[in-house]
């Protein structure tokens, strides 16, 4: 193996490939850089990136790709741009209706551009494989870029040479030269004391000195990156089943429904909507329905037995939480959140408790329980027997002249009973019953029932015998297990940001050669502070220097 460049410094230190400034004495290794007299580039203290190798193999090549900050910036910019594309039209997941058909919707609503938008898959930008892929690549780049820089930097800062090469010291951006009249060691000592008072850690090697302050701020960016990686992992973790749920359930008053893909059931005991009264509204809003309150009295149940999805199994439920859900006050239970989302005030008939009247005697039998769905097939009422022969949820006469149902909602329910009893045919006589008065009239119940209508009547006495749901509440079910991790990631990232922003890593090197003091200082930002630190310490030792005069050029902030 032949090294492509000579990385051995004149001080005898063997540096890694890609090193700019000798890891030990700080002398520039590159010939061109040695001959220039501009201030040195101190990034990462001039150490080589970890992955820089003279003969990279395939793994090294992948690694080097992600190790490049240039690539990282490209990835971030591409992600930003594509994320912007996703905001042009609404994303598919913002539509909740089951009848929403994206292949039709976008073209219909936005024309050709909408169609192209849909064809390109931009209607699902943030769930697309390539967008997730970009995020994964950014994450990889974050890890590899950080690791490749933080480890060499840590090593470089951990074993710093105190006596640096003159060309290193004098090519810093803050430089001071002076002819010392007193003893060099004693002066260095007192200068060190002055710096200690300013919070510097001072290391001495005879008449050479290294003073350092706030090194921890160098780790800020890396801590920031750890936070970002955690944040990104939490975002990716949302694709784990059960980590993120965002669905909707509709619960009519009095019903209990299972929350999809969970072991929980929700009962809506009562939904209430209240509107502002006319006099409560300002002039310009009068005549409109302005909601004052939407409230669902909700009970959350957990299934404790027979929860398996077996046909006919009746799950055993146990109440776990009771809450009146209003807007922005969801029912919260172990990460599951139920928000008030919408409502529907169409009433739904659930059951009636009718009586059977023998018109000939005036005798009343019943009432009996008649739910709209899955009613008992036989009802014994005094001397009468009602056998349920057929039921229709939305009664109509079909094209073939036979009764049929138009839907499965109890919009116009009808029941056909075979009635047996005194004075009726022994095999029974058919009787059609419409629980809703409007249907009874519309379909002329008495005409259909003919002479039986003169003998008996099935009717409901009073509203207390009618069981109906006044409203249906629509709730938004949300689970987001990633949120705590997003917070932790955000906090760590913020800590890193603060560390790197509000503190600066300041270092001062000096050496005295034959009474000639050479001082160089470096910081990553706030050079003004750096120079005034140096000037103040110099003043304490009796050397007066204007902070401005220490400026050695370069791009100093």
């Amino acid at each position, binding site marked *: 193996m032949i090294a492509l460049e000579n990385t051995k410094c004149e001080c005898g230190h063997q540096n890694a490939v890609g090193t700019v400034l000798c890891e030990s004495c700080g002398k520039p290794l590159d010939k061109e850089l040695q001959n220039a007299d501009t201030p040195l580039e101190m990034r990462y203290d001039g150490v080589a990136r970890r992955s820089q190798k003279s003969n990279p193999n395939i793994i090294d090549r992948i690694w080097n790709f992600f190790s490049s900050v240039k690539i990282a910036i490209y990835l971030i910019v591409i992600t930003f741009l594509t994320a912007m594309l996703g905001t042009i039209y609404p994303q598919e997941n913002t539509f909740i209706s089951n009848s929403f058909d994206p292949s039709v919707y976008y073209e219909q609503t936005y024309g050709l551009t909408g169609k192209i938008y849909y064809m390109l898959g931009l209607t699902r930008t943030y769930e697309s494989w390539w967008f997730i892929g970009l995020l994964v690549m950014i994450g990889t780049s974050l890890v590899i870029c950080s690791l490749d820089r933080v480890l060499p930097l840590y090593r470089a800062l951990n074993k710093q040479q105190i006596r640096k090469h003159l060309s290193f010291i004098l090519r810093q951006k803050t430089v001071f030269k002076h002819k010392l009249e007193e003893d060099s060691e004693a002066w260095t000592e007192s200068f060190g004391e002055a710096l200690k008072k300013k919070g510097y850690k001072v290391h001495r090697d005879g008449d050479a000195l290294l003073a350092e302050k706030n090194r921890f701020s160098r780790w800020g960016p890396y801590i920031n990156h750890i936070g970002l990686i955690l944040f990104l992992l939490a975002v990716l973790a949302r694709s784990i089943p059960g980590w993120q749920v965002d669905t909707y359930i509709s619960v009519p008053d009095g019903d209990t429904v*299972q929350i999809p893909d969970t072991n929980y059931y929700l009962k809506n005991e009562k939904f209430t909507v209240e509107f502002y009264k006319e006099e409560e509204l300002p002039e310009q809003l009068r005549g409109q329905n302005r909601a004052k309150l939407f409230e669902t009295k909700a009970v959350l149940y957990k299934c404790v037995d027979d929860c398996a999805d077996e046909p006919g199994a009746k799950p055993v439920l146990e109440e776990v939480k009771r809450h009146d859900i209003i807007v922005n006050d969801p029912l919260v239970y172990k990460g599951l959140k139920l928000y008030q989302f919408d409502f529907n005030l169409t009433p739904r008939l659930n059951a009636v408790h009718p009586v059977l009247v023998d018109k000939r005697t005036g005798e009343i039998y019943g009432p009996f329980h008649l739910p709209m769905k899955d009613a008992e097939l036989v009802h014994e009422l005094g001397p009468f027997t009602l056998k349920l022969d057929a039921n229709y949820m939305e009664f109509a006469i079909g094209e073939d002249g036979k009764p049929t149902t138009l839907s499965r909602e109890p919009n116009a329910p009808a029941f056909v009973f075979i009635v047996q009893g005194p004075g009726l045919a022994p095999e029974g006589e058919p009787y059609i019953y419409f629980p809703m008065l409007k249907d009874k009239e519309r379909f002329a119940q008495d005409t259909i029932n003919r002479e039986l209508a003169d003998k008996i009547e099935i009717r409901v006495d009073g509203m207390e015998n009618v069981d109906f749901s006044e409203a249906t509440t629509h709730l938004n079910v949300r689970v987001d297990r990633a949120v705590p991790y997003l917070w932790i990631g955000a906090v760590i990232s913020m800590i890193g940001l603060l560390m790197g922003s509000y503190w600066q890593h300041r270092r001062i090197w000096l050496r005295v050669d034959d009474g000639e003091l050479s001082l160089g200082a470096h910081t990553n930002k706030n050079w003004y502070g750096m120079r005034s630190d140096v000037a103040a310490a110099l003043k304490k030792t009796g050397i007066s220097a204007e902070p401005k005069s220490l400026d050695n050029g370069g791009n100093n902030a």
Partner: protein
Amino acid sequence: MGKWRKKIQVVILLAVFVIGGYAIGTALFGEERTGQIKPGQQPPEFKLADLEGGVHQLSDYAGQPVIVNFWGTFCPPCVKEMPEFERQYEKWKDKGLVVLAINLSEDTLTVNNFVKQFDLSYPILRDVNRKTEKQYGLRSYPTTFFVKADGSLMEAKVGGMTEEEINERVERLLQL
């Protein structure tokens, strides 16, 4: 140092491969949470009772071509299809064709009365509380899913079909 570097590189790249692969994979092949299942996807499993109380699972018919038809008595085109499916079933059942007709959560009496009018030999399954139809992302009725013997969806046909249309699809389903 060199050995460690290699190990760390391999470990990190492997982690990226696994985590990233999982994330991208679920984005690529993951079941869409909304909408109807698409050709090539695996139709959701269900476990439903027939009229006699026998339990049928989609996976019971693995290796056989299956027609999963969602129907209701309130839907005239569904009603029209029922005897057509019966004839097709009789015609192709020796070749392994399975027909599962899932009723759209109507009540027992309604379904029984309806089925009595026809002489249907394929199983009529009873969905409960619209659970299965939701899993299948049904938007309108009837909808018929043609599932290939390998368990993947060949076609989801929304709307009624003529008998020839059913026959043509069954032939495609059986050819493989």
